[in-house]
């Protein structure tokens, strides 16, 4: 069989995102990941809510369901329960997944339904023309907050930890090297995989992640989490994370300064939710954590669900109708 390419997972439908939108590169990463997995299109379903990100299913040549605002995790739960053989992806955004649909996201995560949830976080409402979102930073000026927003922003990965997620990862939209394999890791996880993708909205929130994702400083502003490896970063790999035991917090250190060596750095343990919480909350001037922040083993919801329910119809209606106390008036 010929090697699959991302083009094998493209549809004939014209993509209508704004030129330069981060969604283009995420779409390509998704298609690349599917190609790398050799995903069977008929067994793959993309379910989305409403918003710019949620248009993605129209452009992936698999089954797809563009649903209603915020409800994709609930619909995807129904799909997965009805047919656990399917690979079910949920495409959502910060407004769709964390505002109108936060409740469903929370419950999908706590149940650990085997879904792959990709949350495109651009910290703004795009499709409704630029209002502030639940992840917008305080002071965001927008058509609905001309004096600057006053709501505290939600941190998606922290939300996922609170909801009991068993797989939490973070990535950048334009990372065509890192994102496809990360998506495959998400797919291979048993249970809900939650991936926050920092996505650039070129029209309403341009370059909001610039200080994190700018290509030139990425090595200094991001830290890649690799299970079992020391948490180090920097162009020269000369920085790292240490635990401040007095304050139970993480500090950034320079290797070779004050006698600090690699052996003093924290080693990433993706099974540790306490560490995950500290990593997930890091923001500039600390490096922003990328990669798999948390991964835990737990039964997937649909497995427990079907383990307790017989798959095939065993009891016949004619028999069920006669259960209980009968008054038999048939001729004897």
């Amino acid at each position, binding site marked *: 069989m010929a090697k699959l390419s991302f083009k094998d997972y493209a549809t004939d439908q014209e993509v209508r995102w704004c030129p330069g939108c981060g969604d283009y590169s995420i779409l390509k990463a998704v298609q690349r990941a599917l190609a790398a997995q050799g995903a069977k299109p*008929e067994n793959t379903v993309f379910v989305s809510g409403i918003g710019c990100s949620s248009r993605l299913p129209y452009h992936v040549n698999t089954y797809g*369901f563009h649903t209603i605002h915020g409800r994709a995790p609930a619909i995807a739960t*129904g*799909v997965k329960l009805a047919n656990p053989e399917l690979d079910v992806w949920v495409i959502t955004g910060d407004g769709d997944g964390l505002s109108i649909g936060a409740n469903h996201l929370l419950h999908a995560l706590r149940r650990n339904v085997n879904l792959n949830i990709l949350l495109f976080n651009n910290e703004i409402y795009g499709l409704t023309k630029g209002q502030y979102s639940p992840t917008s930073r305080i002071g965001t000026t927008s058509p609905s907050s001309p004096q600057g927003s006053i709501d505290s922003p939600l941190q998606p990965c922290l939300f996922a930890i609170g909801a009991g997620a068993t797989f939490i990862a973070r990535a950048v939209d334009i990372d065509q090297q890192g994102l496809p394999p990360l998506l495959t890791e998400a797919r291979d996880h048993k249970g809900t995989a939650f991936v926050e993708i920092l996505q650039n909205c070129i029209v309403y929130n341009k370059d909001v992640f610039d200080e994190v994702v700018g290509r030139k400083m990425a090595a200094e502003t991001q830290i890649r989490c690799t299970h079992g490896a020391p948490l180090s970063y920097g162009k020269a790999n000369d920085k790292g994370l240490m635990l401040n035991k007095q304050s139970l917090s993480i500090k950034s250190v320079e290797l070779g300064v004050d006698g600090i060596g690699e052996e003093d750095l924290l080693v990433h343990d993706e099974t540790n939710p306490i560490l995950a919480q500290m990593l997930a909350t890091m923001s500039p001037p600390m490096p922003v954590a990328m990669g798999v922040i948390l991964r835990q083993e737990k039964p997937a919801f649909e497995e427990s669900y079907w383990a307790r329910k017989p798959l095939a119809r065993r009891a016949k209606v004619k028999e*069920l*109708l006669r259960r209980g*106390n009968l008054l038999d008036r048939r001729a004897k």
Partner: protein
Amino acid sequence: MSQTSTDKTSHIVRFAGDSGDGIQLQGQQFTIASALAGHDLSTMPDFPAEIRAPHGTRYGVSAFQIQFGGERITTPGDSPDVLIAFNPAALAVNISHLVPGALILVDEHTFTKQHLKRADLASNPLEDGTLNDFEVVRIDISRHTLESVKAFGLGSKNSLRCKNFWALGLVLWMFEQPRSATLRWIETKFASNEAVKFANLAALNAGHAYGETAELAHVLSQHPIPQAPLDSVEYRTVTGAEALALGLVAAGELADTELMFCSYPITPASSILHQLVGLEEAGVATFQAEDEIAAVCAAIGASYAGKLGITSSSGPGIALKTEAIGLAVATELPLVVINSQRAGPSTGMPTKTEQSDLYQAIYGRNADSPVPVVAARSPSDCFDTAIEAVRIALRHMTPVILLTDGYIANASELWAIPDFDSYEPIDNHKPDGRLRSDELPASIFERDATTQARVWATPGDPRFLHRIGGIEKDIVTGNISYEADNHQAMTDMRLAKVASVAQFIPEQIIDQGLPGGLAVVAWGSTYGTIYQAVKDSLRGGLNVAHIHLTHLNPFARNLGQLLSQFDIVLVPELNTGQLATLLRDRLLVDVVQLNKVSGQPLRVGELKAKITELAPRQLNKVTGN
């Protein structure tokens, strides 16, 4: 009192006590005994929304009413002729409903100063003349119960819990009804707790023995009523919730489709979920979602993936599901939405019945998004109505709303078990096994010309990869389309789809009576009351007929022509006139309204008075069946 009348063919008995007294269980067991004795019957549980309301209060009274008899019984009856009252509050709130001369059996142990005060009674009704028009029997049920279970060492609180079975034993003796089913029930239910099991058995038997031995037989013993003229089939009792659950499962078997029932708890709809959990072996999976919206969405997801999604709620929950129902309309997915209506608006009165969600079912969505609507008329009718809802959903690939209510869900009646072999299979519109590869549609949105149904293509099938959604789609390809002509065509198609249901459903029949005079036209749980009122009125020589609608959207295709044959149309409803509006709107017939929104069912007497006011005399007497 009833025992003096020899032509009595039915009794109406009401059990009433505190919401923790086990009144509902007592009523259910008495119902089964009545059925096994060969009586037709109809019951009405009437309980408060509070789980354990403060002891002895009026608002904490739980009641269960049953009418059973030797002819067709379709209502729990307007006015009980026997009341069993476990405390002063139970007596106080039920006394106004009784027929004069009714037998009142009270637990006199509870008529203390303290209890009277809790029931807001200034004086003791047993002594102040309140009950002069009734036959009152005072028995210290509490003391007799304690004595009968003393040997089992349960302590006085748990011993008193057996009171309902002691009283049930006595009432079964009064009506010469069998104890066997209740004895079996106790043995199974309390199999793991010997002391409780034996105590309840002893209480039941002691109550029964009390009837035989006490010097009260002349008052207590009721005139036996004949068996009902039943057909030569098997019968059982069934509640609306049971029949609805069985009907869904039956529809799944007829359609060769597994079901996924997704819901969120709400009174009075939860009993359907509880019933279906017990039927999972029959091809239905249940899922308790995080909220009403998630419940309907999970059901839609299940339907998309090839299992028929069903969701169930009551009015407030249906309101939350509304947007998602529109998604099912747009995506042409089968879905059954069950509304167990309750009194509203807002939280309203969760345990009280009303028929006020008809507008919501028919009109309650944004945009032109028509949905077929059917309504169950009685507990046993829920079986056929559930099958009908599934049949329409799959025949036309559409969401369908099934209206029932709290009264139907909890009430029970005697049910002639249907001959399931005679039910038509349901075409599930799945492509597998039906289509050869050269017969595959070019698009899954090629629609059947008579039903407007598309193929139910589902993930897992490599032949039908497709993307759907709530955005308007091209009528041919299914791709996103904002074209003006296309939206017009899609809107027309959606209307035609629902309208086409009328070509497949039976013509409307007249349930009783003949054309010409007054037609009583109604829907839902008022059926039993209207049946009885029209039957009595026909016997009384009035020119009246009963027409009861199952299909509310669309109406049966002959309904307009049928109603034109009557001089007057009367529409009794437990709302402010919703079917009346629909009839005027769709058929241009004017109607007279009879509306009641008290949270209580329509009474036969109320309706008969209205029929008498409106109906002409018969020229040639017709007889009710």
